[in-house]
């Protein structure tokens, strides 16, 4: 997480990585942005996931140190079978213009929780890093017009060709040499032509049905892996209960309609909580709550709400299943005035003005305790799909660097990114867009199966429990779509969780 502290490196990153894509396993944000250490080498990893799975993902690695000369990548499952046997590693192409930048193409054949295991080789030896990846299809495959045209041409040509060939063979082949076909031969030929025509039509129909079924299965898989609907009900005046509208099904790629149900009972904790619930006041996102419901018997989740004003709220709820695959549940709820207690523990809230363009693009946001968060964004406009190290610093009221930052749920900061039309939602951290629970699984697998020196990102969190964090932090991420966004930055100071909001337009 340290490779981006040098402004020159940030500049190099912004300049070098200009390919489009999207971002993390949330809503409308699939690509992976991750910052971590492979042993002594700080790496910034971007995974551009294919829209269509099976498909080829592009994995970009920017080394923070100049002495890395080789990057190799293998794709594994995150847990269980398939998580420890490597394929032949793909040796990433090293950029000639920028020798600290490496690109690898990886075939993604499966859906679910995978990991890219990256081996960096440099002057300090070999070291590994694992990056969890949520693989899922986002759109149905399309056929280019020329291929479609060729298909039609081939279909007509072959169909029109085989009928007379079959008929001709039936008519001619048994005629003794030197003789002309008799009436019986010609009749036989016509019969065979008719049968061939019917058979060809049958084959074409069968193939069309097969194709339709394949396309329907694919569309279903895309739908199953979209953010899933959650239904919210209010009980006893202040208890919000969340239930899945339909089971969580992880389809198996290439296995027809086979799917594995992910039980809510098997959801694993992600930085200390089974669910991270965000209630965003609509319209305008003038209020936001970050809460942590408890699991009930039967798989529902419930939370006793703090005091909240009446209104319409958008629900985003992040969970991670037992295999390390992140799911974001979405819904909405209309709440009456809630009279409850103040937020406590890891729960947090923020209230401010709603989004209303044109934005000031302000780079300073006030904190409730009088301090402020400064976004060191530089002068240029923010662009979609550009891997970016979002840099912030926390200041006291008098402008001096804050010295009382504490880990908030194990991390220096959390950033929640919401597009004004709610089509993009991402909950990212100083490690990037991967869920911490998945990262823990990846690190555990790496520690168990590797002799190479590793560190990943997790150790960067652990040591912060006993000392104040630096006032500066960076969050690797790339905004997936152009548009208007609100970024919520959440930190903890002197035992109190505080939130700052920035509005910005992304080109």
């Amino acid at each position, binding site marked *: 997480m340290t490779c981006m502290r040098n402004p020159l490196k940030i500049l190099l990153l912004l300049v070098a990585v200009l390919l489009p894509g999207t971002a993390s396993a949330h809503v409308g944000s699939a690509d992976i942005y991750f910052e971590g250490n492979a042993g002594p080498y700080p790496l910034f990893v971007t995974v551009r996931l294919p829209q269509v799975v099976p498909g080829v993902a592009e994995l970009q690695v920017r080394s923070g140190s100049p002495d890395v000369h080789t990057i190799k990548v293998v794709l594994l499952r995150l847990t269980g079978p398939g998580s420890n*046997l490597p*394929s032949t590693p793909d040796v990433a192409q090293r950029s000639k213009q920028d020798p600290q930048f490496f690109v690898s193409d990886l075939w993604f054949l499966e859906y679910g929780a995978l990991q890219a295991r990256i081996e960096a080789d440099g002057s300090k030896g070999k070291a590994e890093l694992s990056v969890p990846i949520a693989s899922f299809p986002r759109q149905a495959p399309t056929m280019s017009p020329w291929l479609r045209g060729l298909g039609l041409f081939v279909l007509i040509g072959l169909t029109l060709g085989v009928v007379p*060939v079959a008929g001709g*063979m039936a008519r*001619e082949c*048994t005629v003794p040499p030197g003789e002309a076909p008799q009436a019986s031969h010609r009749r036989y030929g016509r019969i065979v032509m008719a049968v061939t025509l019917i058979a060809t039509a049958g084959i074409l129909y069968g193939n069309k049905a097969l194709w339709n079924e394949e396309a329907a299965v694919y569309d279903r898989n895309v739908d199953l892996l979209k953010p899933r609907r959650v239904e919210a009900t209010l009980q006893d005046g202040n208890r919000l209960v969340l239930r899945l509208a339909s089971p969580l099904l992880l389809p198996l790629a290439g296995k027809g309609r086979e799917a594995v149900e992910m039980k809510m009972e098997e959801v694993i904790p992600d930085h200390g909580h089974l669910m991270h619930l965000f209630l965003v006041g609509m319209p305008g996102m003038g209020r936001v709550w970050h809460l942590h419901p408890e699991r009930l018997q039967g798989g529902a989740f419930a939370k006793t709400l703090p005091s909240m004003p009446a209104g319409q709220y958008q629900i985003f709820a992040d969970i991670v299943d037992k295999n390390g695959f992140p799911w974001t549940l979405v819904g909405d709820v209309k709440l009456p005035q809630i009279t409850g207690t103040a937020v406590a523990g890891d729960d947090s809230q923020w209230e401010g003005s709603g989004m209303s363009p044109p934005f000031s693009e302000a780079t300073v946001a006030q904190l409730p305790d009088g301090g402020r968060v400064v976004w060191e964004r530089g002068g240029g406009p923010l662009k979609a799909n550009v891997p970016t190290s979002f840099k912030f610093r926390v200041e006291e009221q008098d402008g001096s660097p804050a010295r009382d930052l504490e880990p908030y749920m194990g991390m220096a900061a959390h950033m929640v990114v919401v597009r004004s039309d709610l089509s993009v939602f991402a909950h990212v951290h100083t490690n990037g867009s991967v869920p911490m629970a998945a990262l823990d699984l990846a690190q555990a697998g790496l520690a168990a199966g590797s002799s190479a020196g590793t560190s990943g990102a997790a150790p960067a969190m652990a040591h912060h429990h006993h000392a104040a964090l630096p006032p500066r932090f960076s969050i690797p991420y790339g905004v997936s779509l152009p548009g208007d966004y609100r970024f919520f930055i959440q930190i903890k100071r002197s035992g109190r969780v505080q939130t700052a909001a920035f509005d910005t337009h992304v080109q």
Partner: protein
Amino acid sequence: MSITKSFSAESSVESRPLAFVSAGAVSIPWTIWFTIVGVIATMTGSVLDLSWHMSIGRDEFWTPGHTTMGVGGAMAGLAGLYEILATTRAGAFRGRDASARILGAHGPGGAFLVAWGGTAMLASSPFDDWWHNAYGLDLNFITPPHMLLTLGYFAIMIGAMVWLAGMIDRSREGLRERVVWLFLIVSGVSLLFMPLLNFTTRRSMHTAACYLAVALVIPSLMIATGRGSRHKWGCTIVAAVYMGIVLTSVWLLPLFPAQPKIGPVYQNVTHMIPGQFPLLLIVPGFIADLLLRRLESRSSWIKAVVVGPAFVLGLLAVQWPFADFLMSPASRNWIFGTGYLPYYFDLARYDPYQFKALEKTTGAFVLTMAAALVASILTTRFGLAWGDWMRKVRR
């Protein structure tokens, strides 16, 4: 083993009128050799491709298997096309009197189907590539582009058989024997590509659906080619060629090292993974040959009623107990190859050494088996008609 004894007297060249003798074949033209090599190359390519998918993964379109298949299809297609063009242009020099006239062109009847098949195979390539990239996985065989590819390949093989069948009739002694063997080899290769789907995998061999699948597709081809070859052990040889090719692949492929290039990897693959041990078709093939000789003077329907069920029951008698052996640890060696698992095989999904139970009740099993017996009669009858037709092919 004497082949000539099994030929009927009516096929001797000397007994033909002058016009036929002038169209008699004196050697095997290079276009036929080209076609046969194309057939074998395509077969080799497809066996290699299957193994590549199981051992390495389809990381790009132009794998050695795909390339060999493409070259094989192109060779056969071009040979067929050349034969047609040459016969059409050259007239009597290339036996135009003994050629079929189709769509205004002249050539051996089978060459037209070969040319069509080669075109279909090549035409399927871009769509196969798209399909893999779109719907993937490479484990799916039943896709429209694969159907077109298989149909094209099948057309090449049927075309080659018809082409050779015409030559058998017009060939002199000695040459005829070689043509018959070429016919039997192509027939044996074609048996590899019968659409048995997943019903004849090792795990399915204790289901009635396995035998129904065999009954629906195997007798028609094996009886037709065995009979069309005019060899008295035609069905046995066709089955032996099929088994020999598959066994060769089971025994040779693992000698080549390989490592998966695509993850996730579920099995530690260090060498090429072959397909499964062949079906024991040589037994029903032998039974069919014996019975057909005994029933030579009977009607085709009588032959079908006897040979069809005997074919299925003969296979059942050997394949069922053999499947028990294939499931046992004793078969997990290089000879039977049941210990080889593809890199993508996730043991958490199912046990590869447990039989499937497709029929849930005994009644369903009996009914499916009865359907297999009835189907075998019909497909044997069809095979007899097709084989008899190939015996009559003159051009």
